[in-house]
């Protein structure tokens, strides 16, 4: 396969894992984050330490030999866990805040992670960290994509997932329905951070080079935009949005300077013209489409009967 095409596929696959996590948080639970690049950064840097530093340390200090792939497996798990633990701490501090402020707090978190990394010489500081081992393969990424899609699907179609959607729809009514709103927000945040951590770990060991600016606020915004572009509350939309928005800039590579102009414009047009995104609120599966159709038909059928009582306020 053409190396360039392969690279785009791998990057799409890695993005997809992070965006799926964010889709659980944003699309299904209704919390917006502008700091998820921070969780990716944690995953990346922890993984880099595990694959580029740990084997040497073990060798020289303890005379132990760590296989590269074993180190890599450890790296992905450690990156995911680290991101998860940090998200739990962040969640305890910020999840009680109201929407807008939660958003700003996550943004502050993401930037803080970046600035801290800038100041740690051990991981390369602001100049970045080069020549990491290349351990991520295209088949691994695609395999993990399938796994994470299944996990997301199973989560959303369980009582925990439905409770998250209830939190998004109407927080107070969710509480009155016996749903622990705080706990479900926390679960969504931790799951999304773990996904981002895995994506970060895979990325570090694929492009072999990481630098704090790669995890700036623009990166966080990109992830959120992919979720919205595909459609809030839809896993298939998330997949579609990730694929399209990762490929589009590549297609316009020759117009490098203009691609982000188009990108910014596309975001505005989507927000203003089609806020539900490409497929918001439904799934592109046979049963999902059937469900959407029956809902539409049912609505039409009863529209004719008319409102039973004077219209809504």
């Amino acid at each position, binding site marked *: 396969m053409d190396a360039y095409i392969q690279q785009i596929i791998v990057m799409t696959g890695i993005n997809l894992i992070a965006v799926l996590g964010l889709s659980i948080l944003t699309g299904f639970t209704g919390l917006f984050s502008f700091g998820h690049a921070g969780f990716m950064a944690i995953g990346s840097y922890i993984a880099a330490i595990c694959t580029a530093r740990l084997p040497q340390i073990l060798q020289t200090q303890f005379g132990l030999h760590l296989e590269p792939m074993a180190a890599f497996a450890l790296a992905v798990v450690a990156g995911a866990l680290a991101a998860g633990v940090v998200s739990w701490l962040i969640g305890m501090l910020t999840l009680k805040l109201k929407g807008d402020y939660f958003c700003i707090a996550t943004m502050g978190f993401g930037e803080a992670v970046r600035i801290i990394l800038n100041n740690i010489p051990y991981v390369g500081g602001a100049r970045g960290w080069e020549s990491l081992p290349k351990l991520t393969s295209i088949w691994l990424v695609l395999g993990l994509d399938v796994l994470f899609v299944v*996990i997301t699907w*199973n*989560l959303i179609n*369980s*009582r*925990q*997932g*439905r*409770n998250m*959607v*209830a939190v998004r*729809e*109407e927080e*107070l*009514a*969710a*509480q*009155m*329905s*016996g*749903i*622990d*709103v705080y706990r479900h927000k926390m*679960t969504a945040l931790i799951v999304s951070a773990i996904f981002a951590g895995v994506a970060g770990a895979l990325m570090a060991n694929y492009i072999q080079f990481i630098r704090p600016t790669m995890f700036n606020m623009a990166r966080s915004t990109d992830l959120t935009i992919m979720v919205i572009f595909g459609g809030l*509350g839809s896993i298939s939309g998330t997949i579609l949005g990730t694929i399209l928005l990762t490929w589009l800039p590549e297609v316009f590579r020759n117009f490098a300077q203009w691609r982000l102009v188009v990108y910014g414009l596309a975001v505005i047009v989507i927000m203003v013209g089609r806020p539900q995104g490409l497929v918001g*609120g439904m799934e592109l599966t046979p049963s999902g489409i059937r*469900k959407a159709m*029956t*809902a539409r038909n*049912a*609505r039409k059928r*009863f*529209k004719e*009967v*008319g*409102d*039973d*009582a*004077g*219209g*809504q*306020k």
Partner: protein
Amino acid sequence: MSDTPILELKGLTKRFGGLTAVGDVSFKVSEGGISGLIGPNGAGKTTIFNLITGVYKVTAGEVLYRGNPIHNREPYQIADAGVTRTFQNIRLFKNLSAFDNVYTACHTSAQYGIVEALCRLPRFRREERALKEKTRGLLEIMGLSDRADVMANNLPYGLQRRLEITRALALDPKLLLLDEPAAGMNPDETLNLMKLIGEIRDRFKLSVLVIEHHMDLIMGVCEHIHVLNFGCTLADGSPEQVAGDPRVVDAYLGVEEE
């Protein structure tokens, strides 16, 4: 019927800053009964619901549910314990179908954990089937079966109220709080609603506390009525006693001219 009331408020008080929204209110809701909470606009009725369900923190006084204090618990714990409610301005999960609204609220009937859900273990499958059964049953009883697939937001107003009650019933409550269930309804619908409230009580073996402005509804279904004015108790008793109380007539003549 036991002697302990299902709900007892003792000296309940709520202040917002310097404003006393509810001042020293005490009353009981007897097990299996239908009680009414009435009073002019701004009398503090909804505030009392918010205090019972834990949305607001109590300033002073106690809320006893089956003899146990619940006013320090989180709202979702109170709902879990068996106190559910509807809202004056309907709060459904708007973008979900009628079925999913009820399906979601059935969650306390299942025990499976998140790992069982992710791996689709047998208990998950078994309990999910049971939840679906329960949801269908509830929709059937409440006459919403044929609209199960309609998005809540697209239901006619009267059915939205009905769906909200159905959703509250999905938690198997022992005490149901209804906040102006007849608001915006015509006399026919109000009559139906009265019948429905009675049926629900008998079928689900629960107690009901209802806030209402429609006096015919209150007088028709309630066995006991508590009247509030400016956050304080004005009268308490059977519908006949309350209707004959001159203070109640006074309070209502001043405000209720629609």
